[in-house]
């Protein structure tokens, strides 16, 4: 590598090193004279901080950062931060946003079958993992949510398509909108059954659970075993 590129390499190396929070492509380019130098320098640095180093240079969503290699993690236990545990609701919401993005609040609630409690999205926003991303062009123009660069950084992904099991999930069709229970519930005759004949249904409920029912349940269970 010639002296000029070495000079720029050292600058960019130091820049990324001294900025724990990742450096954007834009800022890096501001330190370099042209695109050719950028290409040469970044290739050189990627090479330097590869599997031969305990530090990896990673790129995610137009951001560069140095992060320790995963395989040396057990030697760094003393550095481990006390982990914030995410509530189940928050984790599910995060997963839905990650895999279904961009996704509206109503869609998240549809999948979870329960409304998002106040503060769940708040927590994810505060962690810097999700961000609002444009509005859906449907009545009411609801805001859609997506993951942020901070999400990629935290989970060690270089792009959203690297999400575990994403391809498999796509194949099953579970990530595309389909008929849900509430869709079916909205069907006219059914909503009639649910709302108007509510009392009858409650009565029916009371009658429904008999020993026979339990017996049937047990029989089914037994068969499954």
């Amino acid at each position: 590598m010639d002296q000029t590129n070495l000079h720029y390499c050292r600058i960019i190396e130091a820049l990324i090193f001294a900025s724990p929070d990742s450096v954007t492509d834009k800022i890096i380019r501001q330190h370099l004279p042209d695109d050719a130098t950028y290409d040469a320098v970044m290739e050189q640095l990627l090479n330097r901080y590869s599997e031969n180093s305990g530090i990896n240079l990673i790129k995610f969503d137009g951001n560069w950062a140095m992060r320790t290699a995963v395989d040396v993690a057990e030697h760094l236990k003393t550095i481990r931060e006390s982990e914030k545990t995410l509530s189940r609701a928050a984790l599910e919401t995060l997963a839905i946003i990650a895999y279904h993005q961009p996704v509206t609040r109503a869609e998240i609630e549809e999948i979870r079958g329960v409304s998002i409690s106040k503060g769940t999205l708040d927590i994810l926003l505060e962690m810097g993992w999700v961000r609002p991303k444009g509005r859906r062009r449907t009545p009411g123009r609801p805001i859609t949510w997506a993951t942020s660069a901070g999400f990629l950084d935290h989970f060690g992904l270089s792009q959203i398509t690297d999400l575990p099991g994403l391809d498999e999930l796509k194949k099953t069709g579970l990530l595309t909108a389909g008929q849900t229970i509430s869709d079916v519930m909205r069907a006219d005759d059914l909503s009639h059954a649910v709302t108007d004949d509510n009392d009858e249904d409650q009565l029916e409920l009371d009658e429904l659970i008999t020993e026979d029912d339990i017996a049937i349940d047990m029989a089914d269970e037994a068969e499954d075993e």
Partner: protein
Amino acid sequence: MNDSFDDDLTVAEARQAGQLSLFLVLDGYEGPIDLLLDLARDQKIDLTQIAILPLAEQYLAYINNARELDIEVAADYLVMAAWLAYLKSRLLLPDPEPEEQMETLDMAEALRRQLLQLEAMRKAGKELMALPRLGVTRFKGAHQEQFNPVNVVSHTATLFDLLQAYGQIASREEASTLTISASHLYSVEEAVARLGDLIKYAKGWNNLLSFLPPNLKTELDHRSAIASHFTATLEMVRDGQAQLRQDNQFGPIYLASTEEHI
């Protein structure tokens, strides 16, 4: 149905066998789908092959049990129960019309899909947390260089900061709109100024009411205007600018200027 003792015994047996989790508290569940998913897991088979009828029955049993134990059951659990009761009745229908049969299949399929979808997301969440996470298995460089302070200061803010700031402003504003609710009343000073102008153009005696300003929208506005204008006339009489006359008790009050204008 047998007496309650036998009932309890059956349930207890079932519970001991680990086959029915009837005594789980509803609070532990994140909604009806979550409960259904938990019950479905008890079937210990691939969710794609889940048997809908026993699942519906288990759910109904669970909810019914909760109700018998006087556990408050949230509305969405009951809506789901009603829906599953309906689905169950359809599944048990001996010879449904072809059209109804299709609808039943749709319902069962939607339920299956919903369970698969939530299960998939739950699994995805677990997989996410198992990824090499920052601060857990991957670490940032801890050293932040202390460069000599430069005059160029760049300010940063996240979208969260911005939204939070606006949320607080909006909250604050709401609070203030709630406390400062005083309505605008017609002040005596305003009335003095107004009458002082008007009376110069009034000839002879005029009913005080005819001097009231237009656009008095509410009854309160109207009464406050009468009160302030009457007080204003008293001030004007004291200052010798006007004379007042009332012919009988509760009768109209007349006002005239002391000076004659052309």
